[in-house]
């Protein structure tokens, strides 16, 4: 025992003894750790930090101490209470996380349940391919032109340099609007001067008649021929035609445009080739073929390729330099301007890319045909 301390009132208060405080603090901390639920923890909080808890009771004894000892005891108690409060907070957080996790786990659902109550729509591939093609040309700075489907004979034929005796003008190929009063197939049946357009070329004529060069237009649309519907023919189908009128345009610009178009649709390795051909509205005229997008005309694959029939190339459409006679009829000065035009079918672009054997599937309206396409190709 040390010598008596004259400055110190040797009143011994047991609850404030450091050992005692350490003991009750340790008890409290053990209880906090031992609590496994928030409810248990709540009781621990009451037992160890409530008004009747040993630390609270000890705190009350501070007043009994001589003034010099109060500070030290106060600090000791404060530290102990802080330690316990911290432990409670941490444990509360832990238990809340555990209980929340358990609660969410209890809400587990079967995620394989169907989510198909909403009816889902889809767009027809013929619509989306027309938009796709239009976008390719719009990106090049072209515009999209449109025109009526019941069209003036003059625009469909004459303006396109298909003269009065051109075979295409017969009723074997062209739907004629009946002339009022004339019997179908009788004399005068074709006197209406109106046809269901056989190509989108009258839109080209309209573009030249209403715009001032330079003209760069692409014309997707529905066209008509008097073919009975079968797996490979329909009386109605879709084309895209393009027309460029500017100073100094040549076949080379046509080739460049078609190569670009082909690459945009079929990928960067695509290319085209020209073969000579004949169309009344172009001169020189060419057939344009696409490199077969299945075998790419590779020597090892081409012979057995069913897509191109071993040719290595697929017929794509017709094209050429706009016949100056067409320019004259449409009011464009052929001495100053030249142009090129091209056209291809869109239905077959869709059917060949998606292995659709029967063209009638495009027209029947079976929702199972359109649904797989969603809203884009």
């Amino acid at each position, binding site marked *: 025992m040390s010598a008596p301390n004259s400055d110190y009132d040797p009143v011994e208060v047991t609850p404030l003894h450091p050992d005692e405080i350490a003991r009750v603090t340790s008890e409290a901390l053990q209880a906090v750790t031992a609590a496994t639920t928030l409810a248990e923890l709540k009781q621990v909080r009451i037992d160890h930090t409530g008004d009747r808890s040993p630390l609270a009771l000890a705190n009350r004894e501070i007043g009994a101490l001589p003034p010099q000892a109060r500070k030290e005891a106060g600090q000791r108690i404060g530290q102990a209470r802080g330690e316990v409060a911290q432990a409670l907070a941490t444990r509360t957080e832990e238990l809340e996380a555990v209980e929340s996790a358990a609660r969410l786990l209890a809400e587990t659902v079967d995620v394989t349940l169907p989510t198909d109550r909403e009816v889902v729509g889809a767009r027809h591939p013929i619509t989306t391919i027309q938009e796709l093609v*239009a976008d390719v040309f*719009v990106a090049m700075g072209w515009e999209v032109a449109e025109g009526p489907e019941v*069209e003036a004979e003059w625009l469909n034929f004459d303006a396109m340099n298909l003269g009065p*005796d051109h075979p295409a003008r017969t009723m074997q190929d062209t*739907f004629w609007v009946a002339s009022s009063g004339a019997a*179908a197939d009788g004399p005068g049946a074709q006197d209406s*001067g109106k046809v269901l357009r056989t190509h989108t070329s009258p839109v080209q004529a309209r573009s030249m008649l209403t715009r001032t060069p330079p003209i760069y237009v692409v014309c997707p649309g529905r066209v008509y021929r008097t073919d009975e519907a079968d797996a490979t023919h329909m009386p109605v189908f879709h084309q895209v035609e393009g027309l460029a009128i500017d100073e100094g345009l040549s076949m080379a610009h046509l080739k*460049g445009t078609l190569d670009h178009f082909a690459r945009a649709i079929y990928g960067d390795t695509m290319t085209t080739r020209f*073969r000579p051909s004949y169309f009344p509205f172009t001169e020189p005229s060419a057939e344009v073929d696409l490199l077969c997008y299945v075998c790419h005309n590779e020597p090892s694959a081409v012979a057995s390729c069913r897509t191109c029939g071993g040719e290595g190339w697929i017929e794509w459409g017709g094209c050429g330099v706009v016949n100056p006679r067409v320019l004259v009829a449409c009011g464009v000065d052929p001495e100053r301007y030249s142009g090129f035009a091209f056209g291809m079918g869109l239905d077959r672009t869709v059917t060949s890319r998606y292995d659709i054997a029967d063209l009638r599937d495009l027209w029947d309206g079976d*929702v199972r045909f359109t649904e797989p396409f969603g809203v884009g190709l």
Partner: protein
Amino acid sequence: MKVPVEWLKSLVELPAEVTTAQLADRLTMYDLKLEEIIGGGVSGPLTVGRVLAISPEQQKNGKTINWCRVDVGAQNVDSVPDAPGDDVASRGIVCGAHNFAVGDLVVVALPGTYLAALDFEIGSRKTYGHVSDGMICSTTELGLPDDASSAAGILVLPAGSAAPGDDAIVLLGLGDQTLDLEVNPDRAYALSLRGVARDTALAFDLPFADPAEAVTLPTGDGGYPVRVEDPEGCPVFSTVVVTGIDPTRPTPDWLARRLTQAGMRSISLTVDISNYVMLELGQPNHCYDRAKVSGDLVVRRAEAGEQITTLDDVVRTLTPEDLVIADDSGVIGLAGVMGGASTEIGPDTTDVVVEAAHWDPTTIFRGERRHKLPSEAAKRYERGVDPALTLAGAARVAELLVELAGGRLEPGVTHVGTVRAPAPVTFAVDLPARISGVDITPELTQDVLERNGCVVERDGATFVVSPPTWRFDLNDPYDFVEEALRSAGYENVPSVLPTPTGGRGLSREQELRRRVGHVLAGAGLTEVTTLPFVGPAHLDRLGLAPTDERRRQVLLANPLSREEPGLTTTLLVGLLRAASLNVGRGHDVVQISEVGRVFLPAADEVAAPIYGVDARPTAEQLAALDAALPYQPHHVGLVLVGERERTGWDGPGRPAAWSDAVAVLRRVAQVLHVEVAARAAQVAPYHPGRCAELVLADGTVVGHAGELHPAVAAEHGLPGRVGVGEIDLDLMLAAAPPIGPKPSFSTFPVAKEDLAFVVDEAVPAESVRSALAAASDLVESVRLFDVYTGDQVPQGRRSLAFSLRLRAPDRTLTDADIKAARDAAVRAAETEFSATLR
């Protein structure tokens, strides 16, 4: 045009190493596109055999095969002890067919023969217990066209037509190849060996001798008397006379083979020669039996009602548009199309008048179509035959009749008319390079055109080119560009992307139509495209009244089907047809839409004028064209069958209703920023009490939506209540503002008030709603959230419950503000609709 390669090679000396495939490729790039290579599929020891003995042997599988001994001449082996009959030099062959007998001549593929039709090389093989030393062939196996024998089995050659051991490849022409070329309408000259040979020479840079120039032209007067009364229709007419023909002479094999390969039948020597010259020179011609012609030959238009029996034994009644050849007996030939039966060459014909003329292409074209009589001659005349060739053509026929048929050329010729030379064309020497984009020098252009038969004069920077008489396609400067490019090579056109000066993107209408497409798909609708052809029966099924405007269709002169004589006036026909198809295929949920045109005739249909093409029509003329066309707006149509919301594990389904159809079309209006109001209407094919007409702010009705009339639904086999709708999209696009409404909202607190009113059942909910909305400036929005009829409200009335949102743009509302606004709303409902607040 079928071009026998052997015949072509007789006119152009192609290098031996050029294969048929290379020849075809080159011609394809010269605008004579290969359709197919015919023949040439057989090689090796294909031999004529005579059947010496047959031993039928029944097999275990039930089949009977014939074990044969066949004499194949020099190809025989010394001994086949196993084979039936005497063991003489021969071959033993097993054959499954039965349509031949001992003594017949057959075609034997001996081991080593390759048959392309089977893609197989025949070998000697053991089969049915014997060594079969080859194969007896059918027409199919030989790649020959099917004939009567094809079905029966093997090909039996006519007795005496060959001897055992003969090379059957030569006999049947199987080694010869024929190019089937597609000749474009502008290259009529290539419907002859002469024309194809000229292009072949050009394509391979070879000299060319024109076979027409090799013909010796007869001269002198005193030919058969001819009167041409219609020189427009018949600019040139030539005849020569050949007598003393021996009608018993057969057509030589070489000539018959060339004809057959070119796709024509061998008939008799005189007729064959006539056809041969047409193929060779491209000059159609006709041989009249001299003995059957009475009097002068007269070229004239027919009189109405005149008749002729043509060579195909059809009696044809003529019109004054028909150009004919007549003699004293009447019409004996339909000019350029087909000859007449009365002067036809027969088995006794010894003297002939050979006619070769030039006919007006348009007259021939129309006559051929009028009589539905396409012929080889007409095909050539309508596209254009060299008018300078008539005399050479007739003379060539005569030459062959003399050489092959023993005939005698009578002195004197008839040659009426004159050949008009094509007009010269002037163009800049650099035009071909400028237009093609290929570096074509003026020298190349000149050389190519001269080889094509043109006369080219160069005057500094200009060419003056006179085309030859056989080219009808060289009229404009660009036509010569094509000729030059053909030689410079289409494959050499470089690829240069043009640089437009900048477009404006999609038009407003195009962009808006795309929005509509996305909205429809987003609303759960599957887009379909339907055919626009409909007829009265389809419109009947919609229940349209007899006076309904939609019964006035744009009719077609030549519809594909009598049931569908015109174009549709409503998309609902096609959509309901598609819905039926889907339901019929077992779909319970069919929610489809279409964006497409309908065709509505103008009140007074006028014909669209036809203008010339030498200049742009005037603005008035163009307006007249458009004025003659029917109104053909884009419509949006939709049909909703089955559940709009599917039954699921988390809730019951909801069947499509009239309101869904209205809702979809309202959404369409919404994305276009077009205000549409719904009004009750009674229109077919809708349920009379469940149809809304959709109205623009200016009162224009743009369409309808609602429930399909149950009778129409039943008629189309559609179950339950069906939602349908259709609007005129063009009207909607025209009403769409250039930019949408600006966003405008207050950030002050909202006050919410729910009000329920009892009103007469006939009062439209929308009227009450808009009255509430207009009652106070503080009303931000009004939404109907419940409709109630039942015990709680009197009969004939219903309760409409609205939730109002009140808000001021500039302040927080006070209780007094809210009360005033609420009172104003109640008052409006009470005064305007005799509503009572619940």
